């Protein structure tokens, strides 16, 4: 895995430290697959962190610098890839604790036929090691996604096919992974999607054409490894 930065690591570290000192830090809980066998562990962890944190909601993205001071730090549970066990296992626990879940999923993954989803996952760096649904789908359905979105949970586009970007990514790939992905995800979800995230979490500045295309397509935020950047 190659993490790409727009600046040197030393400069990046300096900027991140300044961000934390200036009150722009945001706490995350990153999840991928969330198997039932770990349900008790997830519940124990959520019970521990919930009382100490303020749920970070979509509306907070647009007003974080003007919002009323938060006494307890914000926390954003981020659920990558769109696996079915996110909906079946983790989401109910997060909802019971009052958290907004932030789903980041490749737009094409829910459209892959159930029988092909495991192969698609293997071919697209979607790590799925605990198969608790033998013979069944492993990805959340769009109906499940729409229902979660209707309850206030947030969906971000993780490209179309779980793609990474480099300085040399060709235009045709950028179009599919940025523009086609947005249309595909909005068709499935039934609402606008304005947050984007690359595989390996590239930030603004890695590929200027990709940055321009994100803005042209209508994305307003780029979620990366170390930053959540407001684009427009």
């Amino acid at each position, binding site marked *: 895995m190659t993490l790409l930065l727009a600046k040197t690591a030393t400069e990046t570290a300096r900027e991140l430290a300044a961000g934390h000192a200036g009150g722009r830090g945001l706490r995350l809980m990153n999840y991928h697959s969330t198997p039932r066998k770990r349900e008790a562990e997830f519940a124990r962890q959520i019970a521990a962190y919930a009382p100490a944190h303020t749920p970070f909601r979509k509306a907070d993205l647009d007003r974080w*610098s003007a919002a009323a001071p938060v006494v307890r730090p914000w926390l954003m549970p981020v659920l990558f890839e769109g696996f079915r066990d996110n909906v079946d296992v983790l989401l109910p626990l997060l909802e019971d604790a009052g958290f907004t879940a932030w789903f980041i999923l490749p737009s094409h993954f829910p459209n892959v036929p159930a029988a092909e989803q495991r192969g698609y996952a293997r071919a697209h760096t979607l790590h799925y090691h605990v198969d608790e649904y033998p013979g069944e789908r492993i990805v959340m359905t769009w109906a499940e996604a729409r229902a979660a979105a209707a309850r206030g949970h947030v969906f971000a586009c993780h490209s179309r096919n779980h793609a990474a970007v480099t300085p040399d990514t060709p235009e045709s790939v950028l179009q599919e992974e940025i523009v086609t992905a947005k249309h595909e995800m909005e068709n499935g979800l039934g609402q606008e999607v304005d947050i984007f995230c690359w595989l390996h979490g590239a930030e603004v500045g890695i590929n200027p054409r990709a940055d321009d295309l994100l803005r042209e397509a209508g994305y307003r935020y780029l979620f990366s490894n170390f930053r959540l950047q407001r684009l427009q």
Partner: protein
Amino acid sequence: MTATPLLPDDLSAEMDRLGNRPYAEIGVPMYLVLEDLTGTMPQPLRQAGDPELAAAFTKAAEQVAAAKGTLEAGDIARIIEVLADRSFLSRPFSDLSDESLATK
């Protein structure tokens, strides 16, 4: 809130330990930084800053750079993992994980 020192005695060992967890099936605490690239959001920031975390981050980056002769993006990710593990709760977050459940 934090009862655990933000930086462990052996930072490198802790970075390696946390870096070997089964990321695909567990919850991992992390930090990121909000950035407004439009320059249109009102100031000043209203969430309290965390100078202790910022100082620990800077110190850890300097330690790693001194030990390795360079600092890489992956090092930053590992440093953040260590800091998050030791700052979200009054004890290390990873103490709440059940390592016996890890898929081999």
